[in-house]
């Protein structure tokens, strides 16, 4: 028997729609659940004091500091490298064997699991280079991890700068470098910033690569050589070792707010960038 097309159509819409609904609902529920349990536990004291008894009591101030500093270090290192790569790929060369190698390397790096970054950071930065568990080791490891994101978004942003601007700049006797830093980069900046925010977002949420490189000290960091604990790591240890579910939920809620804030900022920037482009 042949089912009439109208009915298969209705069936398909039903099944696909249900699947979509399930997806969206599950994802939203996870966030809602964390916020519902966590938000009541958040207080000013929780945000502004040091943890006590390994986090069973007290606040999470040092982990907030760690969560701010570590991604910042990563960005400071990854941004020039990422933007530089993007500039080279889009401004200084055509597609050839060298760019193929660079692109292949970037794509591969993007696919490497964070635990491998953790292993590498541990053996290379922490052990061989003797940096120990420190913000520097963690920042360098995260920098490598977010490099592909920065490269991709920067390249997209740079390629979106109209070719005409480059021609004009060149006709006004600008060298390639002058064109890049006076015309191309200023116009690609919003797009590049989107990549920066996405990179920060990923760094904030990262656990495996951080715990083996930045360590998990609960002390307030005073130098780049100090070990820090980020909120993600703190949350992981609270939850995994069953130290305190209340504190875990509260930390998770703060974490969700941080990640949402960073990612929403990235989207806002991207949309403004697109709007500006099309006007």
């Amino acid at each position, binding site marked *: 028997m042949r089912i009439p097309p109208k009915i298969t159509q209705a069936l398909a819409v039903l099944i696909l729609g249900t699947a979509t609904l399930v997806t969206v609902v599950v994802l939203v529920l996870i966030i809602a659940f964390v916020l519902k349990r966590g938000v009541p536990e958040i207080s000013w004291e929780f945000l502004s004091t040091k943890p006590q008894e390994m986090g069973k009591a007290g606040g999470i101030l040092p982990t907030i500091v760690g969560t701010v500093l570590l991604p910042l270090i990563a960005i400071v290192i990854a941004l020039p490298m990422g933007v530089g790569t993007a500039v080279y790929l889009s401004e200084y060369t055509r597609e050839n064997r060298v760019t193929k190698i660079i692109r292949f390397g970037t794509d591969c790096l993007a696919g490497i699991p964070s635990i491998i970054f953790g292993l590498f950071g541990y053996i290379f930065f922490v052990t061989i280079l003797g940096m120990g568990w420190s913000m520097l080791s963690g920042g360098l490891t995260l920098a*490598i991890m977010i490099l592909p994101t920065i490269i991709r978004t920067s390249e997209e942003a740079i390629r979106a700068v109209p070719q005409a601007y480059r021609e004009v700049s060149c006709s006004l006797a600008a060298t390639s470098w002058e064109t890049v830093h006076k015309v191309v980069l200023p116009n690609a900046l919003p797009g590049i910033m989107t990549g920066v925010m996405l990179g920060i977002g990923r760094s904030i949420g990262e656990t495996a690569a951080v715990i083996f490189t930045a360590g998990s000290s609960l002390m307030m960091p005073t130098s780049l050589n100090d070990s820090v604990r980020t909120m993600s790591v703190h949350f992981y240890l609270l939850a995994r070792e069953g130290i305190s579910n209340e504190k875990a939920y509260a930390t998770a809620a703060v974490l969700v707010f941080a990640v949402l804030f960073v990612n929403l900022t990235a989207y806002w920037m991207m949309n403004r960038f697109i709007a500006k482009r099309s006007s």
Partner: protein
Amino acid sequence: MQDTPNTPAQPKRPVRRVTGGVATWCRDQLARYVFLAVAFSATVSLLLIALFILKEGVPFIIKIGLKDFLFASEWDPSVGKFGIYPMIIASLWVTLGAMLIGAPLGVAGAIFLTQFVPRSVMRIIKPMIELLAGIPSVLYGFMGVMVLAPFIRNHFGGPGLSLLAGAIILGIMVLPTVISISVDAINAVPRTYLEGALALGATRWQSVHMVILKAARSGIIASVILAMGRAVGETMAVIMVVGNAVKIPHSALDSVRTLTANIALEMGYATGLHRQALFATGVVLFVVVMILNSLAMAAMKRKAGS
């Protein structure tokens, strides 16, 4: 208005400095080489990672023998037993399970969002889903512990923290990846294909599964393979929900330990041969992920080529 040109007196044209360009030229050349050098940062990082993981792990594999490492089923570092077979099986099943959940849901979501939903709605939902991709993986793991594991324990039996829980959590985690890349692949199919099919009297669904899915196939496959790479490599969320017992699972409700969990759990205190064994586990993981990524890249390339 100003039709009479009142051009001010022209200054005398300066003598051009023929050598004035040298500094500019040098700066330009310097910039070019700096950019070229910087452009290799990602590639060099990749090589460094490969080098150091291999350097720590491969001697161990050679010493113990690849076959004994991969296919021996006893892992007890304190007595020098380093077989990761149970972990390989566990990683395999958890990943396959995750794909069984994540791939159909994700692809279905992508089709629905691109074909059966107004563009305005999709403009809201797609960023929302991508936003969820940024939620830290430990949170998913925690949800697994607090909600999913008790549910499984109460309704299906077993310890709750199990292969099944891991597969479900990972399946949910890879959804944003699958949806986002599949949506892009479907959107890249020229609209004329769809319009052509509709003009021939096909229903929307017929056009979708006969025309669009065929054209976007490579992109969708790539999204699933990339998601697989993510699932194999996920660590912290998995540790929290799979129970971490080193044994070959006999049912989905058994507690298992994946390759990634094995590394993360023991890295904190491992020394000597034991630590090398963990790096060797990393080597296996690295190779698997690189193979998956290469497959995904090949699929993407075919899309670009056709």
